């Protein structure tokens, strides 16, 4: 029986083509093992063979993710591998994105197992962890020899079609998947046991870890309210009827801004909620209950505030990823700032 065929992805640096001066080269493929591939080949063992190595400049990839991914898929497919592996990327950001994107594309298009490795703060991790098995590495290539065996062992297991255990058991970054399984004790018993361990100060393992959120120092307060422009933003999914921008009712991938100049209130005939995470009856009866346009307009008319900003911004905050939310927030903040808005009321259901 022949060996299992492996194709490996490297950037220009690890492929020993060049450093920063070669970051713009488009993907190419070379026969055989290159650079870190030798360590990987050793870790994989004799039944596996790295038949080819794809090389691409980090900047080229990061600036042309779609084209670069498509090209990588095309190059990889010509070698008909059983598995595909990228990096590891350690803490190199563009390389991490390239490793994640090429794994994701090859996995989807060619339907073969893919693995890469990264440092926990590599920005490529959060973008691709849901689609790709990513093993943790140190933050520098000096530890290559220590980091590669984990990549190799997961790759072998996947390639052989063996069952993959939990992230803790196998040593890869959690992919955010929930798996149903039968256990001896009920959730209530397990929860009480965890609580008892916690009270005793003993270690315990949660079954559903909560994300941790970064803290921001508070902005300086608004000066004179009566001359300020105030904007409304909501995560409550209030949109013009028919949801013209097709904001998703859960896991939103976008936000939208809508003109409210001259409107005194939100009528149920013209506005509705598309949020899929709460009972929409009350919001649909009177959308001002979520986005208080009527109250803001009244306060604008009586001079309490200088002006209500002419647009409001909306998304659906329902299982929406932190990454997406940050992206929306940055874009909204930039628009509000350039419009001279002085303060923001953000409502959440």
């Amino acid at each position, binding site marked *: 029986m022949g060996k299992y065929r492996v194709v490996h992805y490297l950037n220009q640096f690890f492929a020993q083509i060049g450093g920063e001066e070669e970051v713009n080269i488009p993907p190419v493929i070379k026969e055989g093992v290159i650079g870190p591939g030798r360590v990987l080949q050793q870790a994989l063992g004799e039944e596996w063979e790295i038949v080819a190595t794809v090389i691409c400049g980090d900047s080229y990839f990061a600036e042309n993710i779609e084209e670069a991914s498509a090209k990588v898929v095309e190059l990889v497919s010509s070698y008909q591998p059983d598995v595909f592996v990228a990096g590891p990327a350690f803490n190199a950001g563009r390389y991490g994105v390239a490793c994640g994107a090429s794994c994701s594309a090859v996995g989807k298009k060619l339907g073969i197992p893919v693995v890469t490795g990264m440092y926990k703060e590599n920005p490529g991790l959060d973008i691709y962890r849901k689609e790709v098995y990513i093993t943790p590495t140190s933050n520098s290539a000096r530890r290559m020899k220590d980091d590669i065996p984990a990549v190799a062992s997961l790759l072998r297991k996947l390639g052989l079609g063996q069952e993959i255990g939990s992230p803790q058991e196998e040593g890869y970054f959690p992919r955010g998947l929930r798996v149903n399984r039968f256990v001896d004790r009920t959730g209530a018993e397990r929860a009480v046991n965890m609580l008892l361990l916690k009270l005793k100060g003993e270690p315990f393992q949660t079954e559903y870890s909560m994300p941790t959120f970064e803290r921001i120092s508070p902005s300086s307060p608004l000066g004179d309210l009566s001359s300020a422009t105030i904007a409304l933003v909501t995560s409550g999914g209030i949109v013009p009827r028919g949801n013209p921008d097709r904001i998703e009712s859960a896991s939103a991938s976008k936000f939208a801004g809508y003109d409210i100049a001259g409107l005194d209130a939100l009528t149920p005939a013209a506005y509705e909620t598309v949020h899929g995470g709460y009972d929409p009856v009350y919001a649909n009866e009177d959308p001002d209950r979520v986005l208080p346009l009527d109250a803001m307009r009244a306060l604008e008319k009586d001079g309490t505030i200088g002006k209500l900003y002419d647009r409001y911004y909306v998304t659906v905050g329902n299982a929406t990823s932190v990454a997406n939310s940050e992206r929306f*927030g940055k874009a909204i903040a930039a628009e509000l700032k350039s419009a001279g808005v002085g*303060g923001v009321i953000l409502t959440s259901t």
Partner: protein
Amino acid sequence: MKEIDRAGLPVVHVAAIVPISLTVGANRIVPAVAIPHPLGNPALPKDEERQLRLNLVKKALQALQVEVEEQTVFEE
């Protein structure tokens, strides 16, 4: 919201679930009425409901004018 704050624009979170608002890191928080109607109460007559909403919005605007050092929940 944090990105708006980070950009230097004061922002107040009128939030139905204050613990979530605290967890995600809002700095100025005004507790809202309920999840499906954060700034309303369908059990009230229309006039009273409008007044309730006006009061909440005024409170939110006040919160924007207060200097805060850390996460602050503006209760009654």
